[in-house]
């Protein structure tokens, strides 16, 4: 459903199916998962069994002795080939295989190689490691001043200026502290009519892409070719080159389709080990994780969020202080970016003059945490939209009315001081209220089934400043291809970007060939993450197509074709080259303007090139005897500017909301002494077809993004924002119970109901 009109060429705004649809429904789409190379070895790793411990010894003899094993390596073997074998996007803190000590259960300690995967797997089980256990820390707040220190020395990568001051720091688990201060927060609290203070928690969860993480490397005459299920081929090339001390042009990184990513396949994951192994063995090496192993590799941050608000007598929020603690696990991955980039939106989409924010990235002895569909935003919205609801209820104001009173409107400054632009927060809120029929009487249920409803609205800044480059190549027969390093992991970027090319060149989208990421062929892109591609790569693609169009027009002029002549493209080439020959290559490069936050105040007047806005409204039923919550209606609304392909973005909205539904209701990595105890689909449940509500609506508000390609911006994460607090708010509405920890299990709901009734359930 769209309210936007088609663009003139009829390509942008058109709901065509994905270009690769046929390949996907016939089982023939290309994934690294399918890849087999001649002479390929299969890698399987032995993993740490303690959360924090010095490696005393590693006995690989039984593994080596197993028939069919080609080689067994430990971290020390890697170090002989790569003297500084530590990688990571923010910190160079993660060893290719554990060195000296292990920092989380499941960390790779040794690797076995064989042609037969079963043999490699058996060999890995035969490796024996002796550890001297060390005290471990698992909780993000305890990590602030814990005696257990995960890294002896902090090693920032040098890429980000705001991490430089951490270089060489010792005896700390704080991998980034971000501070923001605007106005007079103390004054606001001193003069407040009401003060509200709450603490919220989120649990650690995992992306579980159905194509488990997989990478392969093959030695070539020139260097290395890496085939990888990665969302960031350009970064992989840069990081592998750095590790090997090679120029970028010796490393080729190729990415076909991805069987889901959601942030799990970002930056560098399995690529460093397969690259090292291919060089050491001089053979192609493939490493495929099992579903279980993914849980030891990357996850979404658990958080603690302390939020406090000052409210005046009219129900206007006058001050807010936020302290957010991000459980980053044993390796920083992109956690410090999450801490800052999401941290500055912690007070929510509200117009508050006096704001203080502290946001801390913390190392702990859990598996690493990174980006997961929202880059930290869903954790923040969970807290501030639950808190907002509690304030409204505390003041006896309708929750939607309270939001209207305080919402951040166009032109008003956000916490950083940046004035809001093209962020239709109010439209999103109003659309939800309209679709929920909010002002009409609501059926509250009877007997043991009580009904409730709730809303949640959130916003997100784009990761900045980042670069995208694209080529559009017009061939001599008039056909064309788009060369870009954006990775299509299901979000439909191949199709959307082809639509941009088609709109500019006035051709059918189906006739635009999209060349998949291959760093020997496709140009640089920062990564496919954070809903940045539509805006950044979309602009680069548009520029490249316009460049190609201008060059083609110039070529036409040079061979004497009159302006506006009705001539086929291939005739222009023929006139120019005398035969079917030549190319017209359009190049587009895009980096938006940006000002990083002041290192003391956290302020900036240009913090993001665009804002993403999303909100959710839900209706639920609670079984008051069991605590079961049944979602009966789910309404997702987003401002995405002008949708390039309305049908595809609509599935992005419901897909994001349903994924967040899992993180809200039941997904949870459970632990025993640092060991994840439910690392499989038997015990880590993700939403299935019975979990989705009977009534789902997706709405796109009428908006345009200034500076976006054809007014578009990213949308992959927006529908995650409001889901968790909307449901918690609805539970409160139904049964008067407030839950402050995710997931919202039936048990926690029933415990709340019984506690409130003065008849608590025993421990």
């Amino acid at each position, binding site marked *: 459903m769209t309210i936007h009109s088609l663009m003139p060429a009829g390509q942008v705004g058109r709901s065509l199916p994905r270009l690769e649809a046929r*390949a996907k429904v016939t089982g*023939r789409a290309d994934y690294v998962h399918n890849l087999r190379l001649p002479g390929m070895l299969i890698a399987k790793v032995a993993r740490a069994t303690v959360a924090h411990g010095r490696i005393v010894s590693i006995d690989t003899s039984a593994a080596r002795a197993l028939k069919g094993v080609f080689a067994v390596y430990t971290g020390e073997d890697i170090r002989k080939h790569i003297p500084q074998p530590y990688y990571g996007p923010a910190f160079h803190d993660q060893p290719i295989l554990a060195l000296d000590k292990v920092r989380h259960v499941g960390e790779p300690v040794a690797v076995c190689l064989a042609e037969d995967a079963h043999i490699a797997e058996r060999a890995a089980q035969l490796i024996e490691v002796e550890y001297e256990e060390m005290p471990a820390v698992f909780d993000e707040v305890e990590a602030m001043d814990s005696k257990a220190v995960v890294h002896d020395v902090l090693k920032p990568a040098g890429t980000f200026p705001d991490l430089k001051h951490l270089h060489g720091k010792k005896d700390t688990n704080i991998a980034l502290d971000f501070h923001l201060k605007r106005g007079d927060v103390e004054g606001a609290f001193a003069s407040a009519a009401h003060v509200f203070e709450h603490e919220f928690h989120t649990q650690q969860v995992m992306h579980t892409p*159905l194509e488990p993480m997989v990478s392969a490397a093959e030695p070539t005459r020139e260097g290395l070719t890496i085939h990888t299920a990665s969302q960031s081929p350009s970064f992989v090339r840069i990081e592998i080159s750095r590790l090997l001390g090679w120029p970028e042009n010796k490393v080729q990184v190729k990415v076909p389709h991805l069987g889901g990513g959601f942030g799990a396949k970002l930056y560098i994951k399995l690529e460093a080990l397969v690259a090292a192994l291919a060089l050491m063995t001089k053979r192609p090496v493939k490493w495929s994780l099992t579903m279980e192993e993914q849980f030891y590799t990357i996850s979404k941050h658990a958080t603690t969020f302390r939020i406090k608000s000052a409210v005046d007598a009219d129900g206007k929020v006058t001050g807010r202080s936020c302290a957010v603690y991000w459980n980053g696990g044993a390796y920083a991955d992109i956690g410090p970016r999450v801490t800052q980039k999401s941290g500055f939106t912690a007070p929510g989409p509200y117009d508050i003059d006096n704001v203080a924010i502290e946001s801390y990235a913390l190392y702990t002895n859990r598996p690493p945490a990174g980006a997961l569909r929202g880059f930290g935003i869903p954790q923040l919205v969970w807290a501030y939209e639950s808190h907002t609801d509690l304030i409204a209820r505390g003041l006896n104001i309708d929750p939607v009315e309270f939001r209207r009173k305080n919402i951040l409107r166009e032109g008003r400054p956000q916490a950083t001081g940046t004035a809001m632009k093209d962020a239709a927060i109010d439209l999103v809120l109003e659309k939800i209220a309209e679709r929920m029929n909010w002002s009409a009487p609501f059926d509250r249920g009877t007997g043991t089934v009580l009904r409730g409803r709730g809303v949640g609205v959130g916003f997100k800044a784009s990761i900045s400043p980042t670069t995208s480059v694209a080529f559009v190549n017009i061939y001599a027969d008039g056909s064309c291809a788009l060369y870009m390093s954006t990775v299509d992991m299901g979000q439909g970027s191949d199709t959307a970007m082809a639509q941009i090319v088609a709109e500019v060149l006035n051709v059918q989208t189906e006739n635009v060939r999209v060349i998949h990421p291959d760093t020997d062929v496709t140009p640089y892109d920062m990564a496919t993450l954070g809903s940045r591609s539509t805006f950044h790569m979309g602009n680069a693609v548009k520029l490249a197509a316009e460049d190609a169009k201008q060059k083609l027009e110039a070529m036409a002029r040079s061979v004497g074709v009159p302006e506006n002549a009705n001539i086929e493209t291939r005739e222009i080439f023929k006139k120019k080259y005398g035969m079917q020959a030549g190319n017209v290559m359009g190049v587009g490069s895009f980096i938006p303007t940006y000002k990083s936050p002041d290192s003391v105040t956290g302020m900036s007047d240009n913090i993001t090139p665009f804002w993403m806005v999303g909100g959710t409204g839900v209706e639920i039923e609670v079984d008051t005897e069991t605590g079961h919550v049944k979602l009966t209606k789910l309404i997702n609304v987003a401002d995405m500017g002008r949708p390039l392909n309305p049908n595809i973005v609509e599935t992005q909205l419901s897909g994001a909301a349903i*994924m967040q539904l899992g993180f809200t209701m039941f997904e949870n990595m459970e632990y025993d002494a640092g060991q994840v105890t439910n690392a499989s689909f038997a015990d880590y449940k993700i939403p299935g077809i019975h979990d989705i509500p009977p009534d789902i609506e997706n709405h796109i508000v009428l908006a345009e993004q200034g500076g976006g390609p054809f007014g578009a911006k990213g949308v992959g994460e927006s529908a995650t924002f409001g889901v968790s607090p909307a449901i918690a708010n609805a539970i409160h509405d139904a049964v008067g119970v407030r839950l402050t920890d995710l997931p919202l299990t039936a048990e926690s709901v029933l415990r709340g109901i019984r506690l409130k009734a003065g008849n608590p359930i025993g421990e």
Partner: protein
Amino acid sequence: MSEHAKSISFELNGSKTEMLVETHENLVELLIRMNLNGARESCGQGLCGCCTVIVDGSAVSGCLYPAAFVDGKTVTTVEHLDNNVHLSPVQEAFIEEGAFQCGFCTSGFILMTHQLLEEKPKPTDEEIRDYLAGNLCRCAAYPEIIKAVKSAANKMARA
């Protein structure tokens, strides 16, 4: 091959086939050796359905099915549905309704839908959900999948 390997013969996508298989090899591993990539092992526990294969007319989880057990049986994979020519009504419906995103689980959903419509040509919403409850889609295209199953049922009823 180990000493326990067995020689089996079966019909694969309409062709008689003989293979030497390990007793510890599963059906997905065997199909990969035969260059069929449509059935994929994901959760490894029979819970996600990415590895769905049809054996003697019944859907099975290839990741939990010993390859040796297909001896004497008929095996059909997603690659057989279009024979490289015409898409099946189910495949067409999945495209038209946009019933997938990353596509990794799609083969499984499509094979299961074929089975469902063979058993129940006009399934209710509840029957669709019950039948597809053993297939997971992390992109959560479930609403579109339900629409696609109904649309495929209509296409087949018209045909």
